[in-house]
């Protein structure tokens, strides 16, 4: 029996998702016979961690503070072993721009992009560069915040006239945004557990054209296929890419790498890496583990064992 503090909730925009992840993790830890303390992360986090004196902190937080290295730094300071990636990998994964630059440097294919903060537009006249950017990326193009998960704030500009509105909207979610080439194709996710790639999951939205926030968390809104039915060699290639990303970003214990398989050309590109993928009923890591014969409870136990 281990005394485990489950950190969940917090004040990020993905609070509700985190509460769902956290609740499932708590249930599993109870079934596994651990001593569980649930902490809804807030101003009193340090005090509550000191009071609880856990042997392991299970970080079931998503988004700002929880997934970007902040809480991890705090746990380092308190010398409490915690689940998932360390501070530096969290920082690299949580910022899509940093992650994509690491991928580019390592020769890992990722959709072409440009990234700017608000200052670039306000002080440096970056707006004048938009036509050139649009010409290079083509339409439709994707505008997304560098630091949000769950598809929050992702906009889709069909023409030049849509770009300013999409940028304004996306800057609502953070001070850095990226404009990215749109890849039409199939949504794939490869979860990695302790350096081993799990079966590929394909998310096929049943109604929506896109795998958006609603499609992600609504039971029955998306059909998940695991292992994904892929042409010969593609599964291995997707898993190989995921492991390369895992290495390059320095992930630990588990992570989920999201890829696109383009409709034209069948090329695989990596969109991003998630240091703390969801653990909800509709989340992909538990699904992939299950397909590999690792049930949810066993997955949670593995993650606790891997805490450092």
């Amino acid at each position: 029996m281990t005394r485990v503090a489950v950190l969940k909730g917090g004040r990020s925009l993905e609070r509700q998702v985190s509460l769902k992840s956290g609740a499932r993790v708590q249930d599993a830890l109870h079934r596994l016979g651990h001593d569980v303390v649930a902490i809804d992360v807030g101003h009193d986090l340090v005090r509550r961690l000191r009071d609880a004196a856990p042997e392991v902190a299970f970080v079931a937080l998503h988004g700002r503070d929880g997934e970007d290295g902040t809480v991890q730094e705090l746990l380092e300071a308190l010398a409490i072993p915690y689940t998932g990636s360390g501070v530096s990998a969290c920082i690299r994964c949580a910022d899509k721009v940093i992650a994509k630059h690491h991928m580019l440097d390592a020769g890992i294919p990722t959709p072409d992009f440009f990234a700017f903060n608000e200052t670039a537009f306000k002080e440096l006249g970056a707006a004048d560069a938009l036509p050139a950017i649009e010409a290079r990326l083509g339409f439709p193009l994707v505008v997304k915040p560098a630091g949000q998960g769950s598809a929050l704030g992702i906009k889709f500009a069909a023409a030049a006239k849509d770009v300013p509105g999409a940028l304004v909207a996306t800057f609502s979610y953070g001070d850095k945004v990226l404009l990215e080439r749109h890849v039409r194709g199939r949504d794939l996710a490869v979860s990695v557990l302790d350096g081993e790639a799990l079966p590929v999951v394909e998310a096929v939205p049943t109604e929506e054209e896109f795998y958006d926030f609603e499609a992600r968390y609504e039971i029955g809104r998306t059909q998940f296929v695991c292992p994904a039915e892929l042409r010969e060699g593609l599964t291995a290639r997707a898993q190989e890419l995921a492991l390369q990303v895992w290495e390059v970003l320095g992930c630990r214990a588990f992570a989920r790498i999201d890829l696109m398989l383009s409709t034209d050309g069948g090329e695989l590109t990596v969109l991003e890496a998630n240091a703390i993928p969801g653990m909800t009923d509709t989340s992909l890591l538990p699904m992939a583990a299950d397909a590999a014969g690792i049930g949810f409870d066993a997955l949670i136990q593995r993650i606790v064992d891997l805490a450092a």
Partner: protein
Amino acid sequence: MTIDDRDARTPGEPRSMTSALGRRQTSRDLERYAGLFAARTKVMKSSAMRDLMALTERSDIISLAGGLPDTSSFPSESFAAIMGSVAVDSTARSLQYGPTEGLTVLKNCIAEVMAEEGTLVDPDDVLVTTGGQQVIDLVCKTLIDPGDIIIAEAPTYPGAVPTFCSYQAEVIQIGLDEDGMRIDELEAMLDRLDREGRRPKFIYTVPTFQNPGGTTMSLPRRRRLVEVIRRRELLVLEDNPYGLLRYEGDALPTLYALEGGDFVIYLGTFSKILSPGVRLGWSVGPRPVLEKMNIGKQASDLCSSSLTQLFVAAYFDSGRWQDYVQSLREIYRRRRDVMLDSLAECLGPESSWTHPQGGLFIWVTLPDYIDTTDLLARALDEHVAFVPGRAAFLDGRGGSSMRLNFSGVGEADIREGVRRIGEVVREQVELYGTLTGRHRAVEPRAEPAPALPDVELADVLHLPPAPERRRRPDAREG
């Protein structure tokens, strides 16, 4: 052809756990439940907005999002005394089930409240419900088959949207202007439906101090609406939670009073004149409809709480209910004025808002390039919240509007909350100006902008197509 590539893997390829497993597998756990869900759950959606709205309840947020009345001014001694008398005088009764249609003592109070607005009813004709929301549910339960048409206002009460959706109604929204629902548009729509051989099951309206629009249907419009429904024999659901909360202007007769009750189903509630915590509302209307609603209520919850019904009856016995409503009017009038003044100070000329004569809400419309659902994410950073306008539409409109509540927070918080909203709006207006080469002037103005009509809201006969989905499938959660 799709083949399972696991068999094709050659030694030396990355190690993978897929080899441990035999065949294709969809997520068992999910499908086990999803396969059992009723078809109606497909339109009972969760959304990013709903998750964002959950954040607005944090204690460090100034929330102008709720529809909460101020219950803090209710004297605690009176509350204790009334509860005490119920406990002593009606112990067994208050702990017992009651009749589905409600206790007679409460129905007498309801008749008194309605008389205060000039609507005379026989207490025997009243159906007591568990909040006004239950009336909306029961009316749908009684009248709506999947695919049936409900006509509502644009914007409409956000709380009615999930109810309409769960009964799989087709909702057609008719524009509002400063005189309430546009009856000319309503008639044009009814004619069009007629030609298609279709007929709405009912028209849903909040004629007085509309939620979320803040506008009030004028007397000529009320008369015209009554004339239209009598001529066409259509039912109206008149939702009137705020009628007694008037801060200026003359009271108007309810549709129910004007029409006589043949085609109007009236919805009232104690939530805004006393307490939403007692969960008590009511309905009066055509007897055959009310009888079916009664049976529907029996199926839903047998009866509303005897305890709170007796509490409200005892409270009315104490004879102070009008004084309390008057004290609420004074509090809310000041708060409304503070909010209107703050909006004039803090929002630029690109924005407009309504000037409600009563009720709890102001409807603000920002420039069309600002999306208020996204803006809410930014506003939450500044610890302030509102309801994005899209919540009041079923067709994707309302993206640039927001609903602000002025009853639930104090004057200082209203000032500060509106100031923060003004800041984030100003930021976005400036950024948009920079991005488009239009450096817009953002000087605050002295006078509020003209209220509705809003071109977008009024353009109901030419409903724009559902906006193109702007999200795309990359970037998963976590």
